[in-house]
């Protein structure tokens, strides 16, 4: 049976390709809450990842040899992307609680120092994914350093997020986190 993601990708292709599609550019703007924007970003990212041949090749390189079924990967990625908003919300709350700014309405995302993240007394390894999704790989490396790791590779290697060649792998880590999230929230843990 064709899965939902494949249908969305096929529709995205049909909606996008065609010389007959031509509209005058009419711009507008809308107010939107951060969580909604994050969800939209996750959806477009999921579609991109699942339809992108480069990404498929990378996923296959990382998982096919480890006997992970690709359809399972896509399902986990899609659902996990949505559930990751809960973690991002938790991280935003911690930043707020400890008065660490990460976004300025005029300047956009703010570059902090490692010491800023050290101010968050409740900071723990479980927060890393939320920071990674919220702030990006480069900025969240400072969070990793605040937690006592040397860098991304050190964190990934020490926690055994490595590919089949034994190299630290963000893709393996992301998959693992998404899988845990899907298992956790599908069991209803968040709905208390």
């Amino acid at each position, binding site marked *: 049976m064709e899965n939902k993601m494949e249908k*969305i990708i096929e529709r995205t292709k049909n909606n996008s*390709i065609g010389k007959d599609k031509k509209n005058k550019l009419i*711009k507008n*703007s809308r107010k939107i809450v951060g969580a909604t924007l994050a*969800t939209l970003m996750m959806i477009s990212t999921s579609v991109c990842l699942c339809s992108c041949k480069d*990404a498929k090749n990378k996923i296959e390189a990382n998982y096919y040899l480890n006997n992970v079924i690709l359809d399972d990967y896509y399902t986990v990625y899609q659902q996990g992307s949505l559930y990751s908003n809960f973690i991002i919300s938790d991280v935003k709350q911690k930043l707020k609680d400890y008065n660490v700014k990460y976004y300025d309405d005029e300047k956009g995302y703010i570059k902090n120092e490692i010491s800023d993240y050290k101010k968050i007394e409740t900071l723990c390894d479980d927060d890393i994914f939320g920071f990674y999704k919220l702030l990006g790989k480069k900025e969240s490396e400072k969070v990793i350093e605040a937690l006592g790791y040397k860098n991304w590779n050190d964190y990934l290697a020490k926690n055994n997020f490595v590919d089949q060649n034994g190299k630290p792998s963000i893709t393996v880590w992301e998959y693992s986190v998404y899988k845990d999230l899907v298992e956790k929230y599908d069991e209803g843990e968040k709905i208390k």
Partner: protein
Amino acid sequence: MKIDTVILDDKEYYIIEKIKIDDNQYFVLISVDDNEYIYIRKLLIENDEEYLIGLEDEKEFDLVMNVYYNMVSTNDK
């Protein structure tokens, strides 16, 4: 916060990402009404007017998706 949108055929779409490839600019759009409807459009400037047009073929679609993937996989804000 505010997000830019565009109107296509009387329907509104969020501009999720703008992607530049060589001299072309592409828009990743998601329907305001149903976020499972995603569109990629290319910007065309004709007689000083801006238009959003469909992609030529699957090859161009794959190209945009590959560049978009490389953008999001580095994931730096």
